[in-house]
């Protein structure tokens, strides 16, 4: 039922938009003038709408349930990234006229080889970002409709691929801005309803966490993947697809290698990655990766191009900080309530569904179902907005930068790329959305962050330097992530630096870029190529410029009269 009422409308509307449902036809000049007048506030709502993915909508609260209050560092990092973007990248990047990092690499350094390497990096970042979106969409679909996990993933993947292949997102900026408002309302209203509806005892428990050791009521846990549980030193293999009934008062088993929610350290505002017992180092590693990675996210950079000039792009970045801040005040509420009401999700590795599982725990009547439907719809809107943008950028990188196909090539690539992501997502059910997304940020911070920062601010950067820095950062970060995925047996601080390599991979990339560049000699025009990015184009410089601006204004007022 919930599937029909919440997900179907969102997917259908997206499909209809793809089939030019709201493709209002306008004259070319109308459209161009309108898009040049997108205000920074509207544009920043569109940026936020695109940025708030399933990882923000569901993942953060899920990580709070599982790992504790320290998981709230994720949204702080997600927001802090826009400060770095505002200070270092937004205005010059817009002035470069580049749509993507590969474009920027070619505009600033004139190297087709670097264009291809950066396109390959986009594939890595896009993959790491898309897989958790598809995974979480599949998980939520299977949780609310009792269908198998793969059905959810395939439905989510087909929806996105068909929409893009049929014509892309035929939605103007204001539709994407509306998406942000929709997500904000669908997230905040249920949160307030939950806070009012839960019993005073639950509110009390939420603020005084205790370890989840005994089931408070009869609980049935559905295991969508096989898991090894441990109880009093005895190991217990739960097969995939099993449903286990626990009676009230039963002792809660432990998932091997993971602490039970609410235990020691859960209420500490620090994050312990890899349970390595170095919470301070873990938290630092995470926040650095997120703050520096944001500027390299391909779908976000592309959005800034809709700003009319560098100044508006900078404003957009600044307003985005404020808008994201409103949204991120709320995941914590779902997190602390989830630990009290649905801690059993930890056993089956499905804490990412905590947000949509909460309303049914509070109210078994129609209001509970209604709010579950609202949250599921919001989660799907989040998933779709981010996936559509990312898949488009990934397909663009493949068909324009790596191969050289045309529009038809782009459409085929979209379908192929979506199929690959679906296949990867089917294997990734165990991996939390927040963790995978953070790896995408880490790769971005280790490759695109140094390339953009040095490219924009340092005229001595050479092609060889940029290339070696990007490659060093790519191999260091993705190599460390691969080690974590394959379960390299390390412990202590070394485990943190492998699971979250940003603290050493970002400096490594910067150093490589600087040292290799210093050994070479930049071309004579390099200095001009860099300085050009800092010249504010909104000031009318020459008489010719002034004349052009005047003519443009006259033309646009004429169009308005028509």
């Amino acid at each position, binding site marked *: 039922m919930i599937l029909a009422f919440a997900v179907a409308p969102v997917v259908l509307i997206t499909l209809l938009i793809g089939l030019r449902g709201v*493709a*209002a036809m306008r*004259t*070319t*000049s109308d459209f161009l003038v309108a898009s040049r007048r997108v205000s920074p506030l509207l544009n920043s709502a569109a940026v936020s709408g695109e940025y708030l993915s399933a990882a923000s909508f569901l993942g953060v609260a899920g990580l709070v349930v599982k790992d504790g*209050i*320290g998981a*709230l560092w994720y949204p*702080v990092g997600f*927001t802090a990234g*826009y*400060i770095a973007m*505002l*200070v*270092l990248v937004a205005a010059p990047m817009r002035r470069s006229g580049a*749509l993507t990092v590969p*474009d920027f690499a070619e*505009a600033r350094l*004139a190297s087709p080889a670097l264009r291809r390497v950066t396109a390959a990096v986009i594939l890595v970042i896009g993959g790491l970002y898309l897989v958790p979106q598809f995974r979480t969409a599949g998980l939520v679909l299977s949780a609310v409709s009792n269908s198998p996990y793969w059905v959810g993933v395939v439905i989510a993947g087909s929806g996105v691929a068909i929409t893009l292949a049929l*014509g*892309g*997102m*035929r*939605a*103007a*900026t204001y*539709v994407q801005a509306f998406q942000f408002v929709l997500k904000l309302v669908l997230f905040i209203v249920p949160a307030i309803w939950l806070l009012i509806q839960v019993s005073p005892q639950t509110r009390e428990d939420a*603020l005084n966490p205790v370890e989840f050791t005994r089931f408070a009521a009869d609980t049935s846990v559905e295991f969508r993947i096989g898991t090894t549980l441990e109880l009093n030193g005895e190991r217990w293999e739960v097969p995939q697809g099993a449903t286990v009934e626990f009676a009230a008062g039963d002792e809660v088993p432990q998932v091997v290698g993971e602490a039970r929610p609410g235990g020691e350290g859960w*209420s*500490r*505002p620090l994050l312990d990655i890899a349970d390595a017992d170095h919470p*301070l180092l873990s938290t630092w590693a995470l926040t*650095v990766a997120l*703050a520096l990675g944001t500027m390299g996210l391909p779908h976000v950079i*592309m*959005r800034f*191009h809709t700003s009319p000039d560098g100044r508006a792009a*900078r404003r957009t970045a*600044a307003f985005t*900080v*404020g808008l994201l*801040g*409103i949204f*991120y*005040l709320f995941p*914590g509420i779902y997190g602390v309530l989830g630990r009290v009401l649905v801690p059993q999700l930890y056993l089956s590795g499905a804490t990412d569904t905590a947000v949509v599982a909460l309303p049914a725990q509070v109210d078994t009547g129609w209001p509970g179902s209604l709010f579950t439907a609202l949250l599921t719809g919001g989660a799907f809107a989040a998933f779709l907005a981010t996936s559509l943008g990312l898949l*488009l*950028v990934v*397909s663009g990188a493949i068909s*324009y930068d790596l191969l050289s196909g045309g529009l038809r090539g*782009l459409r085929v690539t979209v379908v192929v790329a979506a199929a690959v992501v679906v296949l990867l997502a089917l294997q990734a059910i165990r991996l939390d959305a927040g963790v995978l997304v953070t790896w995408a940020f880490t790769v971005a911070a280790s490759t695109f962050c140094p390339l953009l920062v040095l490219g924009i601010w340092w005229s001595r950067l050479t092609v060889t330097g940029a290339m070696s820095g990007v490659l060093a950062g790519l191999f260091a970060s993705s190599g460390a992530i691969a080690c974590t995925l394959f379960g390299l047996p390390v412990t202590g601080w070394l485990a943190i630096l492998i699971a979250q390599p940003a603290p050493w991979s970002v400096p490594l990339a910067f150093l490589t870029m600087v040292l290799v560049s210093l050994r070479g000699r930049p071309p004579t*025009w390099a200095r*001009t*190529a860099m*300085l*050009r990015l*800092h*010249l504010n184009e909104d*000031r009318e*410089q020459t008489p010719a410029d002034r004349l052009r601006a005047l003519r443009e204004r006259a033309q646009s007022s004429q169009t308005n009269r028509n």
Partner: protein
Amino acid sequence: MPGHKRIAVMSPQTRLAHSRRRARGRWRVPKLDGPGADRALVLHRRQLRLAVAPLALLFAGILGLPLVFALFPGLDDIRLLGIPVSWLALAVLPYPALALLAGWQLRRAEKAEDTE
């Protein structure tokens, strides 16, 4: 009639993705005229100088707050309206602080561009 061709409204990303091909393959040596180059040089230096303080504040905040939490675990036990102070400092405090930082830097960066 020019200006009256009808086109489908699509998202900026889609439009940009579709028009990417046309934009390629026309790299030219970048040029700046004399006054433009001088002004760009001044702006580059000025913005670079302005970038130091907000970045220092940002990293002082996101690296310093965890340090405070690690050094003063007692913050978990002090409560405001029943909520641990350390929870509030992580879940609420950073967002207005970041928004203020963004607003401050935005004004400084724009002012630097406005003055000759």
